């Protein structure tokens, strides 16, 4: 029986690997990062020291991730079909003033933190201590004296809920909770 070949990280991996580097990146063999950790272990007497030398190494930027065939072990179908969402909250919130007829002062809310109309309306109800009625496309908000409205980019006063949410939060400049006869006029026979 042939004696087993001594394990040599370098030869073994390089000989058998097909590397797929991203254009522009240098194909860094995974061997290198293995060796780094191996050296750290060799250099350490105990785990505590290891952390220290680890910290020192951390100041240098990590090498580009090696592109190893078939790693991590995920089916190609899944790899091809995942689209990550762009980080949406990079710009900060969309703050708009909220006024309510008869209230002495205004409030401000961040439209970005709500996931849709139901949440937004719930939040305004809680904030201003009143209830909005049931929404229907035909009749607006039934069942209460209040109607939530907003001023859009064109300066028009619109009933909250008629347009898709995404469109709403990008076009809403300010909110106003209308009360009384003015509110009842909205949404009926329009």
């Amino acid at each position: 029986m042939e004696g087993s070949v001594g394990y040599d990280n370098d030869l073994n991996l390089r000989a058998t690997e097909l590397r797929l580097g991203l254009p522009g990146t240098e194909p860094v063999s995974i061997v290198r990062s293995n060796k780094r950790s191996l050296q750290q272990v060799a250099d350490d007497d105990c785990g505590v020291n290891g952390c220290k030398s680890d910290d020192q190494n951390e100041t240098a930027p990590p090498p580009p991730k090696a592109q190893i065939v078939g790693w991590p072990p995920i089916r190609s179908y899944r790899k091809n079909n995942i689209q990550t969402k762009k980080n949406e909250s990079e710009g900060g919130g969309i703050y708009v003033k909220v006024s309510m007829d008869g209230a002495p002062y205004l409030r401000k809310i961040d439209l970005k933190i709500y996931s849709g109309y139901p949440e937004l309306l719930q939040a305004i109800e809680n904030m201003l201590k009143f209830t909005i009625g049931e929404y229907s496309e035909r009749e607006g908000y039934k069942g209460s004296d209040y109607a939530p409205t907003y001023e859009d980019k064109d300066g028009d006063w619109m009933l909250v809920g008629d347009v898709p949410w995404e469109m709403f939060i990008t076009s809403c400049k300010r909110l106003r909770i209308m009360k009384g006869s003015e509110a009842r006029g909205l949404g009926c026979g329009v």
Partner: protein
Amino acid sequence: MEPSELKRSKDSPNLDESTRRLSFPDEVLERVLSLLKSHRDRSSVSLVCKDWYNAERWSRTHVFIGNCYSVSPEIVARRFPKIRSVTLKGKPRFSDFNLVPENWGADIHAWLVVFAAKYPFLEELRLKRMAISDESLEFLAVSFPNFKALSLLSCDGFSTNGLAAIATHCKNLTELDIQENGIDDKGGSWLSCFPESFTSLEVLNFANLSSDINFDALERLVGRCKSMRVLKLNRSVSLEQLQRLLVNAPQLAELGTGSFSEELTFRQCVELESALSNCKNMHTLSGLWDAKGIYLPALYPVCTHLTFLNLSYAALRSDELAKLLAHCPRLKRLWVLDTVEDKGLEAVGMNCPLLEELRVFPADLFDEEIIHGVTEAGFVAVSFGCPRLHYVLYFCCQMTNAAVATIVQNCPDFTHFRLCIMNPGQPDHITNEPMDEAFGAVVKTCTKLQRLSVSGRLTDLTFEYIGRYAKNLETLSVAFAGSSDWGMQCVMGGCSKLRKLEIRDCPFGNAALLSGLEKYESMRSLWMSACNVTMNGCRLLAREMPRLNVEVMKEDGSDDSQADKVYVYRSIAGPRRDAPPSVLTL
């Protein structure tokens, strides 16, 4: 009556076998055996005696073949004359990760030809990692008049034309399940091939396909198939179209939505929510591509009864997941992307006490700038809240030994523990030690462990632990681990129930390979790639064990003496005759 009881009475020492033989009419025995479903039970039954072997083979209607090359279709047909349902698996699992050459084999056609002759009343075919061409699909569609169920998982070689043939010809089709395959998607017209008179479909899964289908045809199909219980749409189906489908199919038990991101008006949101709330039987939800948090509330009515939620194609943030899970108290299985981060997993622990299975998949694999993903903290949080957890697949960027010890202390019932620390050979990120103690804790504590995938920096100690403690282990996956032959020897010597072993990029050589000599015949297969095994070692194995097929896949430009990829499996069909030139059978 249990088969074992029958055996006892038959073999009672007081009976003289020749005169007092308990003669059991074959029909009765067959009737009893026909109630046995598990193929392992049936295997045991067939080993009792010749009568039982025959009774079993005549009563078996479903055959499961875990490795298509372990047996030939002729042998199967000879032994089991009455098969109506076949499950076949082909390529080694690492073919999913592009480690197996394109033309390796596992073609279904030879099987179909034999089945057409011997099993004309075949009803079900379930294939995993097989190569299947459009011609084969057409042949299938016209050869079996009673054909009912086709399920293809991780297969390749066919196009939507093959699906068109199935839709056109299979008049009794109840199930068409096309999952995660390498399909040549030539367009969505195949769906329109179901005749207007066709009403039997119960399961339709075309989530894998990307082309637009004719929505009117789909709407009519769903409308007339009143028994449909599983519907998994592809990304091209919009939210508005989904609502229209659901209105006509409130009986659905499993739903895979299409794209979950188009702009809806308030009214449309309400209508969608209403349609979903009418689906009282729904227990499984998937799809949700591009899901935007703002539309998830439409799902709330369905969430109360959900047991399986697959969000692995929806890149949700932690807060979005948390809000959704607050409505899912009965969840047993959850698949997510690591975009939910540790915070999202904390929400899992807090909201889903009945959770049994968790899979966390990585989202962005190549983006260097964004630090994201999950760590040990998320896994630990889940383990505190979900004591029933027994199946986990976890892709993470860092892990510690202490965390894993805590996790298995909280959840000692793991049967499947698949941990993938994505940077190969990475140690415990706090102590910088190897992850040996982590997997040691797993195998010591989780006595029911059947499947284990290891990762991180591992020495032979990990494998000593596995060999010593993992007595119920059946499947082991190893990558970039171990220090010497001794590691693999421990596993081969200790894991008596091992059936599948797959190893890549480890320092295991011929001594390790040959230490399993006695063992490979009791296993389904062994895979070793980028290890230290040589051609001579493989030849020796092949010589000593004639009932094993020892196959070596050579790569271009590699050393002649190195065995780059080795695949060893038991077979009663002998060496295969359809191997491509790159695969050498020794």
